[in-house]
């Protein structure tokens, strides 16, 4: 039976292909899905695979956490999403840190049968990397996080609940006002009486630090 052959290269290839698959995606907030508290407020443009795009606003709270708000359009599923996530730093030791994420997502499904949904999400992240740009404004800093996200989502037409489980790999690079992020997520959705659906996505985040007053 033709299935991917075992072995690391095949697994990596399958993971990459999964990330490029049209109907696969994840829906928890992404801007705050890291272990590292950001500093400056930023406006962010999101684009990724499978076909999706959006805008976001990242509002740090002086190193004590950050609020991220995202509006995302999923072109493959023709779904609009509004997401908000709050990042709570848990621990920091040298270059290593950990953070908790709490968030929610609202869905609007305007195509086909009109539908709407709400989801609550939580994430836990650990990572390491340099200091954010405000502390070294002229230099380039980088940070990498690894974490997990889980949630519970309900919908108006068919209640669900849908339970998304994801592993998250996030990288962030800051250079002056420019902020660049790459987030890859993979996992599955669980739903009562249905087979699990495997999901994945890769997102490029391009941000710009806003002037503050």
């Amino acid at each position, binding site marked *: 039976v033709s299935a991917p052959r075992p072995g690391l290269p095949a697994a990596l290839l399958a993971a990459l292909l999964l990330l490029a698959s049209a109907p696969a995606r994840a829906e928890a907030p992404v801007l705050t899905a890291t272990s590292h508290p950001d500093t400056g407020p930023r406006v962010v443009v999101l684009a990724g695979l499978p076909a999706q795009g*959006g805008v976001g606003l990242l509002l740090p709270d002086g190193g004590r956490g950050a609020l991220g708000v995202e509006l995302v*359009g999923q072109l493959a599923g*023709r779904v*609009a999403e509004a997401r908000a996530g709050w990042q709570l730093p848990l621990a920091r030791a040298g270059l290593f840190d950990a953070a908790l994420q709490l968030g929610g997502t609202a869905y609007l499904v305007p*195509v086909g049968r009109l539908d709407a949904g709400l989801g609550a999400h939580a994430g836990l992240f650990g990572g390491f990397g340099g200091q954010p740009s405000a502390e070294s404004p002229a230099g380039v800093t980088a940070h990498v996080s690894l974490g997990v996200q889980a949630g519970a989502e309900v919908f108006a037409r068919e209640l669900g609940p849908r339970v998304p489980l994801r592993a998250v790999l996030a990288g962030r690079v800051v250079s002056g006002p420019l902020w660049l992020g790459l987030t890859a997520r993979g996992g599955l959705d669980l739903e009562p009486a*249905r087979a699990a659906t495997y999901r994945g996505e890769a997102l490029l985040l391009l941000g710009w630090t806003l002037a503050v007053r």
Partner: protein
Amino acid sequence: MRRASGGGGARRAWALAGLLLALGPAGCGLAQPQAGTVAPGAGRTVAPGAGRTVAAARFEVRARHTDVVEVEVLFPSDAAGRPERPPGGPGLPALLFVQGGGVSVEGYRWLAEEVARAGWVVALPVHPLDLAIFAVDNGRVARELLLAPPAGSLLEGLVDPARLTVGGHSLGGVVAVKLALQQQAGQAPVAAVALLASYPDPADAARLPSLAGTPTLALAAEGDCQAPLAVVRERSAVLPAPTVLAVVEGAAHFQFTGDDAPDAARGCASTLPLAEAHARIASALLTFLEAAVDGGGTGAEALEALPGVRVEAP
């Protein structure tokens, strides 16, 4: 927390972005066609309805709340691509066919056309990465499309729910068995299961007895390197009666698809020409399907009579 600057302008920009993101997807609805595109020429038709016109249409179905699942549907049609509905009858028999791993649904277009020319509706659900195991649920979605199609679409009233069958090639056969086992409350059981170069997932073994009484075909290729005949023979032995194991002589794994080059690439090329392999495969599948929906049997005797096909276990 410090406030971002740009007050009114920023708010207007956010409002506009939100509006665009919310309304953008609404600009294009789900495809629920009323007619299809007529397939070119009869080609190497082996079906009883040789010369019958066949059309194909691509449906989009909302699934799992936020997903859109594509389902390719082939059906007997008139010259304009509209379905030929049986006058006053119960509808047409249908085959829900699951693609093999890494093979696009286009790779089974030849088989779907042959089956459709015999008067069947064939549904080919599309899966992420052409790996059905990543979204087994897509088959359920295709089944619901056939049984409860959108009002006004070409599928409305076209399928006889009592003659809905499932099948699949390779990894798709594994998933087809899972679909047959996913009996929804209030739904009629599938009328037959056809496994092409495939066998059930051992994880489903405990539930297979629930398929007792459902005619099942294990159609193996004699020269298959991906699903070797010996393995198909062993694994299909757990299928409950009535089950028939038939072997397409000289055929290889990818000759169930539209392109057998992967067999050669794996050093497993068949000497049987692809067109001849297709003729044998389509004849065997149709012989089984017709027998299954007409009388509930496997058509083992008729299969045995087909050239290039031998029956190992009736």
